[in-house]
């Protein structure tokens, strides 16, 4: 073997390696997203701007007022996208908040009581597979009000994962912890406070996180069917208007919907990780 003198193997740093570390981390995103935008632009050139506006057209056509003024209000349903999103978020907050409270309570009962848990399981398994919009007509008939119905659809869509995960979380409390409770003869209150709740929190937040995604999916669909205001309504309204910039407005709204959905998911995940301190 030939001796390797130190330094003789100095590698030429790659191009990526010579960039600033912060920039280097961003490189994959920049390249891939750039590629995606270029592909989109090419596709729009092929299909024609009228059918599928490219990214540049979208920004140009919606800059004023939708991007530059998110909070304009011309009265009626003609509002900025910021307002529309807030209207949707408000509905989600109500429906989802209700689903969280009711879902954790029901899940808690199902988890702590084997009998009820077993008996109701088939009902839950059937109902949770019902698509959100299938609930819409019946809730309209019951509530006679589009806004309440939309909130109900959010509620009924979001509640199942919360129930199921809470119940499973309680049932899956590791035997080790319940054994500790038994040996120490923990009283019921102390047991629930010190063991059941902390052990179940990660499961509950998994349920909440799945639910928030479902709720956001459901609200957009519900608003498209029947509502006044909200991001779903905005999309449907833009489509019906059939103006020159309609496609661009729809695309912009879709991007907003996606970004807000992602933000909601991350928010719940963050709260979950803060609440379940020290866990796992």
């Amino acid at each position: 073997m030939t001796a390797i003198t130190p330094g003789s193997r100095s590698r030429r740093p790659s191009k990526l390696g010579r960039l600033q570390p912060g920039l280097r981390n961003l490189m994959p995103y920049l390249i891939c997203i750039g590629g995606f935008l270029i592909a989109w632009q090419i596709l729009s050139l092929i299909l024609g701007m009228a059918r599928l506006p490219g990214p540049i057209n979208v920004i140009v056509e919606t800059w004023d007022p939708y991007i530059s003024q998110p909070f304009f209000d011309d009265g009626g349903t003609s509002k900025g996208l910021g307002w529309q999103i807030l209207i949707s978020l408000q509905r989600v907050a109500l429906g989802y908040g209700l689903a969280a409270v009711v879902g954790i309570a029901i899940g808690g009962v199902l988890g702590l009581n084997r009998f009820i848990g077993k008996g109701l399981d088939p009902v839950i398994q059937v109902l949770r597979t019902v698509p959100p919009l299938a609930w819409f007509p019946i809730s309209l008939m019951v509530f006679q009000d589009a806004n309440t119905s939309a909130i109900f659809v959010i509620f009924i869509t979001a509640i199942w994962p919360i129930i199921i995960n809470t119940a499973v979380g309680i049932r899956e409390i590791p035997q080790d912890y319940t054994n500790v409770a038994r040996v120490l003869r923990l009283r019921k209150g102390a047991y629930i406070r010190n063991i059941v709740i902390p052990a179940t929190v990660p499961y509950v937040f998994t349920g909440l996180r799945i639910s928030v995604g479902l709720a956001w999916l459901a609200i957009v669909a519900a608003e498209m069917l029947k509502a006044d205001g909200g991001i779903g309504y905005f999309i449907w309204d833009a489509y019906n208007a059939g103006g020159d910039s309609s496609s661009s407005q729809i695309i912009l709204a879709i991007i907003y919907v996606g970004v807000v959905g992602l933000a909601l998911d991350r928010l719940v995940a963050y709260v979950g990780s803060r609440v379940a301190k020290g866990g796992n």
Partner: protein
Amino acid sequence: MALPLLTVDDVTQVFPLDDGGRYVALKDIDLTIAEGEFISLIGHSGCGKSTLLNLMAGLNQASTGGILMDGRQVTDPGPDRMVVFQNYSLLPWQTVRQNIALAVDNVMTGSSEAERRERIEQSIQLVGLGAAADKFPGELSGGMKQRVAIARALAIRPRLLLLDEPFGALDALTRGNLQQQLMQICQQAGVTTVMVTHDVDEALLLSDRVVCLTNGPEAGIGQILNVPLPRPRQRLDVMDHPDYYHLRSELISFLQQQRRLKQRKQSRPSVVPVAAPAVQTVRLGYLPGLDIAPLAMAMDRGLLQQRGLELKPVAFDRWQTLEDQLKAGELDVAITSATTPLALTLGLGGQGAWPAVTPMTVTRSGNALCLARRFSDLGIQDLGSLAAQIKGTGTRLRLAVAHKGNMQELLLRHWLASGGIDPDRDVELMALSPMAMEATLRAGEIDGFIAGRYRVAKALEAGLVTLLATDLDIWSDHPEKVLTCHENWALNHQDALLDLSAALMRGGQLCEDPAEHDHLVGLLGASQWLGKGSALALQSQFDFGSDVPSGVRLPLNRFHSDRAHLANSAEGSWILSQFSRWGWSPFPSNRLELLSHVYRSDLCSRALERAGFADLRPERAPFALADGLAFDQDNPLDYLKQLPYSRATALESIPLPSGSSQRPLAAH
């Protein structure tokens, strides 16, 4: 010995299986733990160590039997029996201090806030975790977590500390430090401790006693080893102690034997269900004597036909012939001396080893030693005068036994040795057919013999001999005759063997019934058993020329009562010690393996069940023979060392004969 804190009384634990079956995890566990003791439970994985620990903790309830703590039954878990679980079981969402506080606050409800704070801090300091008190378990190493778990357990001052493989997951260095710490803490706190482990050195370092569990299913206590190393112990000092390596090899050999048994069980061919004929003929060999009374009774009452078993009893007049026929497969089973199954399995006397098993003891006691009349005229009436005569005159008595190495010879040798007579030098022992003894004595070729009471009674009736001792003086209730067959026959004809055993058990019960006695005497007079002349001797034999008025029956043979039927491997252990004492065989270092193979207590249990009797177990307590030395089945080597005239050779592991050949192995 301090007061018992915890008593495990006859505990059996059965778990239901998913397929509807049952898994017997623990069977018949008896254990008494004294206040302040440190006990280790050791055994292979799956042997039920943790199951037993959970039962002690009260986390599970025993299927049968019970656990007593301070005389009160343990029905649920409680902080007086604190457990340190295998995986620490710290709550990950609470800091070290909070974890300990949860236990302290919940248990010390009568104390003030300040007292509880103090106890918590003190416990944290005890295990040296002051710096980590506010960390979460997830931020700690395995060793630190285990220290927290121990601190939490000790903080609430339990009466009993239960540790489930506490150091299993730790590296060697951490483990060593923690063991030392635990030992100090336990000693300072004086807390009684039970620890599950599979580490032999750990068990020896920490324990006062090591309880070895046999393999599951139906795990039981195989051995209890006392660890008499002085305290306080230091790891290095302990290893230098002269007893250490002996104790260590005891434990290791126990574990190795269990491993081999496990492998053997796995490799055993599964029973091929042979289309069994409606009536099965079983050839049973015996030598006429009172020991066959249960058999005669069982046949008379049709106890065997009831079970679809046709028994063909074959009488022999020499034990050697019977053994040869049994080994040649001419006989299926035999009623033999209690020593025969082990003697055959060891291949004693230069013969090939033959894997014998015994499912039950047929009779206990019933032997007597007699000397020709002329010796009583010389004033020899007991062991003392016999010894004086031998020492004084240098006479070398010729004494007969029915078969070399049988129970009678072991008893005779033991008795002689206890009186200062060397059975190999001071007397001459010879084997003789029991039927020929009386005539040979009459001819003056022997000076006395040890035999069943019927033979002795006949010689007494004839006025030829005087009674020197009965086995009640030597070892009351010793196993005398057992049922013996080949391992494979027991496997392939298990049903027949169980039926036969059950019938003999029922027959034994009838033999002890006073109302049946006259009938039994008449029955034994049949030519098939003892013959016509027997009635007279039988009616008066209980007398034996002693002062006991005729008609008072001395309890010489025991056929049924007081757990007579049990195949007791502790007795087998004693037999092995005697084989070794007289230099016939090295003491097997794998004795438990050998014994569990020969003494089929599982078959005994099932036969008892079939016969409708309670499935009782032998006492574990040491027993003593004529010389008063206690024989502890857990420490036979100590016993062997104390015996006079011992020719015991070194320990040797004795391979079990292969069960695959029905024919005898290449003999000689």
